[in-house]
Structure formats: structure tokens, C-alpha cells
């Protein structure tokens, strides 16, 4: 097989799930009597119709990439950090606490707010990690439980100690003072700080996981924690490290939601981006840095589908359906592909029984 043909085949396999996902979503649209083409064009307009809308897509892309970059660490170590959602929330709470307590010029205050967010997320993640390493509680259950606690804490703060003077409302706390607002490009919410942080997070994940001894140790733990331990890797310490890094990036994402978008603490501050980032990671699979384009697609689908109820009386859940079907199809196609193609690597595995979709190759 020539290199060119191989590459062409590879591209085809990558595109196939996207085509099938669009086809499936089109079928659903036709079933409810809507024109798929019109719906998709509204979605495109909703995502990229003008500069403000494009900026909105980026505002969703930023937390998605931050969370997904963090999740690459935990997935590499074989950990399912479902708690990323709560870690985002805790980042936002920590940021809000500092924003309410300190009055300083922006240049000093904003770095402090971001550090507080990262620390809030990291500590919350460490709690899940310690439950896993020392309490033998599976991280999925620990994370899920802590997510509920984090959300309940936001509500408690909004309706209790941090309520607006006189009334407590679902609309959240009072707006932060202006010095705690992130700078923006013109009138849109997007600003330079977000873009710098995203670039840094991608760089951090790429370099740390591929090029450092930490990354290799996490990978070993992900594949066989017992053997890794006997070979001298301090597995518990590195699991906690993966949790902390992931939580810090998630907390940072929450922090950006608070000071870059809402400028206050609101009940659903995370907008579900933590859970969505898990899907982003699943989709990017073992090609770690693909999280950036995949997250962009997800952000565009999420933002674009908001247009649907306004224009066509179709629920905006369609964007979610598109994303979820895509994830399923990508995983399915990986299985189909490995069944059709003989694996080129030396593998002592039964034919047709491939390793699960993994994150270990980052």
C-alpha cells in the first residue's frame, strides 16, 4: 500500500462518522417534518453569523479545551474524572470569594482570581483523588457525589451568605466590581487572557504527556497500575497529581466563566461544559491534541443549535443529539475499522478483539 493511499483511507475513516452523524440527525429532523438543510444553515448562522456569534463560539470553546486538556491527564492515568464538572464549579466559587473579598487594580487582581480558581478546582479534584487512593471509592462515584455537593454549595452561597442585598434570586450574586472583569476584544466577551490560557493548556498537556517522565508514568499507571508500582512508580502520588492538574484546569475554566462571561456567580455556572469535555476527550481519543478542533466543533454545534427554537420551533437539544451521535459513531467506526483492517502492530491479541478506545497513546 502506498503512503498516499493509506493517508486517503485514513481521512475517509475520520470523515465517515461525521457524515453518518449528519445523516442520522437529518433523519430525525425529517421525522419531525423539518428540512435538514434549513436547520443546518440556521445552525451555521447561529454559530458564525456575525462577529459576536463567532466570539460566543469561542467563549464555549475555551472552557471545553481547558477541561479536555485536564482530562487528558486523568484519562492517561486510567482515571474517569467525572468530577470535572464540580471542579469547574469550585473554581468559580473560589474566584468569586476572592473577587468579593479583595479590591485591587486589575493587573494584580485578575492573576489572583485565576490562581484562586485553579486552586479551588485542584483541591476539589484532590478530594476525589484521595477518596480513590485512600478510601477505595471509585473516582466515578466520588466525582459524581462531589459534583452534587459543589452545585449545592453554589446554591447555598447564592441564596445565603452571598445573596444580593434584600433579595436572593436565581440570577446569582451581585455583579463583581469592574476591576475583576477580564479584558475583552471590543464589545464581545472574548478576550486575550482566555486565548493565552487555552494555548498554554494545550501546550502543557502536549509536552507533559508526550515528553516528560511524568507523562510516561501516568501512561504506565493507566495500563497496569500494579506492575507500574512494582517497577517503582509511586502510583498513588501520580494519580493524585493527575487529579490535581485536571482539577486546576477545570477550576480555571470555571473561573473564566465567572470573571469572563457572567461577571458573577450563578447557579449553573459550569454550563455543563465539564461533562461535554468528557465527550470531547472520548472523540479525540488517543490523538490527544485533537481536543482543540473537536472542542471547536462541539462549541459551534452547541451555540449554533440555540438558533433552532427561535427560527424553527425545534428544540435546541438537536445540537446535543448531533454531538452524542457523533461520539457513538466515532467509537463504533474505530471498532469497525479495526475489524476490517489487520492491525499493523505486533499484537498478541485475538483477532477482532481490540483494546478499548483509549487515551493512553497521548
Amino acid at each position: 500500500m502506498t503512503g498516499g493511499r493509506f493517508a486517503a483511507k485514513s481521512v475517509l475513516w475520520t470523515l465517515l462518522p461525521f457524515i453518518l452523524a449528519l445523516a442520522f440527525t437529518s433523519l430525525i429532523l425529517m421525522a419531525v417534518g423539518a428540512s435538514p438543510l434549513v436547520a443546518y444553515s440556521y445552525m451555521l448562522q447561529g454559530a458564525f453569523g456575525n462577529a459576536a456569534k463567532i466570539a460566543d463560539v469561542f467563549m464555549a470553546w475555551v472552557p471545553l479545551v481547558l477541561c479536555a486538556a485536564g482530562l487528558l491527564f486523568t484519562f492517561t492515568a486510567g482515571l474517569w474524572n467525572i468530577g470535572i464538572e464540580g471542579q469547574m464549579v469550585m473554581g468559580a466559587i473560589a474566584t468569586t470569594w476572592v473577587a468579593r473579598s479583595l479590591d485591587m487594580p486589575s493587573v494584580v487582581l485578575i492573576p489572583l482570581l485565576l490562581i484562586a480558581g485553579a486552586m479551588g478546582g485542584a483541591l476539589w479534584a484532590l478530594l476525589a483523588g484521595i477518596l480513590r487512593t485512600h478510601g477505595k471509592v471509585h473516582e466515578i462515584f466520588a466525582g459524581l457525589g462531589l459534583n452534587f455537593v459543589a452545585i449545592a454549595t453554589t446554591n447555598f452561597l447564592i441564596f445565603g451568605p452571598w445573596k444580593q442585598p434584600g433579595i436572593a434570586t436565581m440570577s446569582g450574586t451581585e455583579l463583581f466590581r469592574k476591576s475583576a472583569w477580564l479584558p475583552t476584544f471590543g464589545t464581545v466577551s472574548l478576550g486575550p487572557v482566555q486565548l493565552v490560557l487555552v494555548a498554554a493548556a494545550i501546550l502543557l498537556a502536549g509536552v507533559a504527556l508526550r515528553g516528560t517522565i511524568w507523562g510516561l508514568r501516568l501512561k504506565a499507571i493507566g495500563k497496569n497500575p500494579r506492575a507500574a508500582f512494582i517497577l517503582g512508580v509511586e502510583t498513588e502520588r501520580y494519580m493524585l497529581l493527575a487529579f490535581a492538574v485536571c482539577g486546576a484546569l477545570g477550576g480555571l475554566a470555571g473561573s473564566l466563566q465567572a470573571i469572563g462571561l457572567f461577571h458573577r456567580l450563578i447557579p449553573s455556572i459550569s454550563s455543563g461544559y465539564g461533562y461535554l469535555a468528557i465527550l470531547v476527550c472520548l472523540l479525540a481519543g488517543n490523538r490527544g491534541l485533537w481536543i482543540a478542533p473537536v472542542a471547536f466543533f462541539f462549541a459551534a454545534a452547541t451555540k449554533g443549535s440555540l438558533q433552532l427554537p427561535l427560527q424553527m420551533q425545534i428544540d435546541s437539544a438537536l445540537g446535543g443529539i448531533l454531538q452524542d451521535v457523533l461520539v457513538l459513531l466515532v467509537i463504533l467506526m474505530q471498532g469497525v475499522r479495526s475489524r476490517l483492517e489487520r492491525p499493523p502492530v505486533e499484537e498478541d491479541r485475538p483477532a477482532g478483539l481490540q483494546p478499548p478506545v483509549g487515551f493512553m497513546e497521548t
Partner: protein
Amino acid sequence: MIVELRNIHKSFGSLRANDGITLTFAGGRVYGLLGENGAGKTTLMKILSGLLTPDTGEIVLDGRPLHAATPAAALRYGIGMVHQDPMDFVPLKVLDNFIIGRSDGLIPDRRRARRELAELSADFDFHFDPDAPISHLTVGERQQLEIVRLLASGVQVLILDEPTTGISGPQKAQLFNTLRRLAQQGKTIIFVSHKLDDVQDVCSEVVILRKGKVVGQAQAPFTTTWLVERMFGQVLTAAARQDAELGRPTFQAENLYLADRRFRLGPLSLTVAAGEVIGIAGIEGSGQQLFLQTCAGLFPPAAGRLRIGDADMTGRPYRRFRAAGVAYVPASRLEDGLVAGLTLTEHVLLTQTRPSFFLSWAQAREQTAARIKEYNIIGRPETPVDALSGGNQQRTLLALLPDNLRLLLLEHPTRGLDVESTRWIWTLLLQRRRQGTAIMFASSDLDELLEHSDRILVFCGGKVTQALPAKEISVQHLAELIGGKGL
């Protein structure tokens, strides 16, 4: 049942594991499949049992082509395999493992299964507690359970991959009797081994593989010289026993008691000098593993003290033991020893004593290539460890050990290895002892224990002998001690 393998080819990357193998196995016989490590025996048997599919070639069963893409399908055709590394379900109980894979309806008849298990185990004189979790069993006991399970599901062709490595002498004799009895009933037994004695003892016909090809086939009796010549293309001589000068005490156990959920063991007091080799004998599962893991710092002792050099290490964490120069090489290479899916280079990077934070792949690959050469590993730096043969995995484990160890603890260091590989492993180990490393190794091979140990500890039924000078013990005496006489 007549099993024919026709022109079987199987490659892993550039490695030709099976290179055009054509063989016929008839019912009513015990076939020996002999060959050194990496000769392709296990691959061929995995193909026959449906675990691997051949690249080309076919399997014919009583004249009909067999299409068994999975072990379950092969089992329906009556072909079952007992693997060298037991493939069972560690979290489950013995009885559940026994039931798994049976096709007697949605709700298994547990009472009948329990009775069958008891009857079959009694036949073999294996002793299982049906309600014990598999994790409490040793590798050897787990192999026994697999044999019993396959017999219960009615196999006609029973493949055993190195079955004698984990079981005691009497158990082996019993196993061989049963294999002969099964052959008399018309079953086809394929006995994969590298142990000449076993093959000469039990097999009525032998097939010898070398580098993926059939290089010899004969009816019993076969002479040792002929077998060795076929296997290696040369005649081997045993290395002479070498005594080494011993140094200062480097490891000390004082009134040590060990306990896990199964049993208590002790008291045990032992002082090991630098450069000394201590052999650990006993029927598999008599606490040897627990003892080695305690000495490695993986388990705290129930009572007593451990010293490395001058430092009291009792209750210290594993990493402190490692830092003090203790290393442990476990028996199950792919479960505990190596990380399946990582390459040799990644393993070398992972085990560097002072790794740089940023990985330098080029340097690591060079380093790996050098170790591959030094340790005679058949593989390349980018080969995943799970693609290596058992013997090469063992060499890899040794190649990953840090230099200048104080104490090296090994479980069955040559289990499943052929004569040549075994000699090579011991050459490497004896080099370390000359550098002053104390070695403690568990083995079920009496000759190995007597040849390489300075002193031998015998574990039996929760008790441990004093360390006995190996020079003064005969094989007969050692076998008696293992069997519990004189303790």
C-alpha cells in the same frame, strides 16, 4: 478425534512465530510439543484453541475444516487449552470460575457444579475450597482449576501449556497418570513443554519446533541427546557449581511472622550476607510469595523486624526498600512485572534511577538497543513487551533492574524457560552476586535450587526450616523436606 494443522503461518510484525507448520494429532495419545522459548509453541496452540487466527493455513477436524474464531467456538468443537499464565477471573470465587463458560442454561446448576468440582479435584488430588476467591490461589493452583474446568466441559482435545511448572512432584505424577488415562479414553492430549524429563515421562510422541518450523517428530522412546540436539541444534553441558566469597550481612529477618487472609507463617530468622544466594523451596503456595513480598516491602510483617544493611526497615514503604537497593521480580510477568502496551524503550525510561524530567527518546532508544543486545532479548526497542515471548519477558525484567542492588528477590526466575534461557538468566544472576548482591529466589525446580543456592529455606505448612547449606543436602532429602518430612 483427529486434528490436522495445515501449513499454518502467523507473524507478529516482522517476527515469524509460525512459519508453515503442518502436523497431525490423533486421538488416544499424549503429544509433546517441545521447543525453546520463542519457538512458536504457544502461538500454534493459541491458534488451535481459537485465541488467535492464523495469517494463512487451516485446521481440519476429523476431515472437516474448523472455523473457530473464538475460544468458546473451539470449546464447542471440543478443543480446550490451559494457558501458561492462567486466564481466569481473579475477583471471582473458585466455583464461579469453574462454572464460567458452561452452557447449561441461563441459571447454572451450582449444586451439580459443586459436586462435579469436588469429584474431579478428588481424581487429581487437587484441593480447592469452592468458595475461596481466585486471588487466594497460587498460579499453580489456578492452572489446576483450569484443567478441571475444561475436563468438566467435555474437551476431546486438551492442550496444556507448560502445565508442570507450578505444581509439586506428587501432583505432577498424578497429573501425568490422569493424562495417560484421558488418552486411553481416546482424548487427544497436547503437552507443550520445554522440560525434557516431563516429555520423556508422559508423551507417546513428540514434535519439536524451532524458529516457527517443525524440526523433528518421533515416537517414544526418545533420547535426551536427540531431543536437545533437535531443540537447540547443539548439545549442552550443565554449568559447574561455583562458590562465591560472601561479604558482610546485608539483610536480616528477626523473628518474622507473616500473615495474610489464608495463613500465618513463622517464626523466621535469617541473616543473608552480601553475595549470598538463598533458595526458597516448597510446594507452591506455602508462603514463599508472601515472604518475598514482605522482604521487598510490599507487605508489612505481622510481627518481627527486617533490616537492610544497618537500617531497620520494618513497616517502611516500598519506595524506601527500593531506595535501599532492594528489587523484586514477580512470577506473573505480564500481570505484575511489566506494563503490557508499553514498549521496551518506555520500560527503560520508566525504570531509570535518575530520570531527566524531559524524556530524551533518541538516547533512550540507544540505551534500550544496548540492553537488548546485552541481555539477548529477541525484540526491538519499539516492540511492546506483550509481544515478547515468555523467556524474553523474563530477560527484559532482569534488564530493567538497577545496578548495584543490595538484595534481589525473584519468584520462579526461570519458570517456563528452556535450558539455554535458564542458563543465560543464571549467568546474569551470578554476575550480580559477584558484585555483592544478595539473591533470594523461589523455585519449584529442585536441581535449580541445589545448583545455585548457598543455603536453602524450605517452606511447608506454615513452617520454615533453618537455612540449610545446599552442599550438604541431597535431592532426595530436599524433596522429603518439601513434602513435610522432618519439620
